């Protein structure tokens, strides 16, 4: 499946997919979905099970959700 197709089919979910093809910037263009869930822990668990496979883990929804602002900040 194309990345856009995965994002549309599994909207607002975490997806773990095997990377079949990617462009020169490393953006996956062809994927095979391994697992998908609203709960990130489910796809993390799937990641452990398919360790060794070249896979991509990502969220398909809008970041941030409606009504949220983003403030990532880590100073050491």
């Amino acid at each position: 499946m194309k990345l856009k197709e995965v994002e549309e089919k599994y909207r607002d979910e975490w997806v773990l997919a095997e990377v079949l093809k990617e462009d020169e910037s490393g953006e996956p263009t062809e994927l095979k979905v391994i697992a998908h869930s609203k709960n990130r822990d489910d796809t993390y668990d799937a990641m452990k099970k398919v360790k060794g496979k070249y896979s991509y883990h990502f969220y398909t929804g809008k970041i941030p959700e409606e009504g949220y602002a983003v403030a990532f900040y880590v100073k050491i």
Partner: protein
Amino acid sequence: MHSMSKFRFNTKAPVIMLTILLEGKGNSKQKIRMALDTGATYTMISWKTAEILGLEPELSKERIEIITASGVEKAPLITLRSIVVLGKRIERVEAVVHDLPPKSYVDGLLGIKSLVELKLKIDFSEGILEV
């Protein structure tokens, strides 16, 4: 001479998301989405991602205090074999292991130290990243 590559990003998006390949111990690797964060000193990855990459963050002797929106915490510092961002590889990348809240919807942050190594140029008016 190294040739520069340009990539477009959406200037209206509240977060710049990048697809990044992380390489850990042995041949372990994982592709994830990270937020480009000029407010973060270090690159940050989640505990689960670090474990999948065989990095054993719980055994790391280096712990550093991190200041987050919710307070000060001690987090392990690990070294990734390499990361590949926008087609460019950076070897031996130090990263803090810390879980971002589930509602952040990202697996990690690409911080200043990595951005400097990458020699990344950001043009916010045109929406161009150059490496």
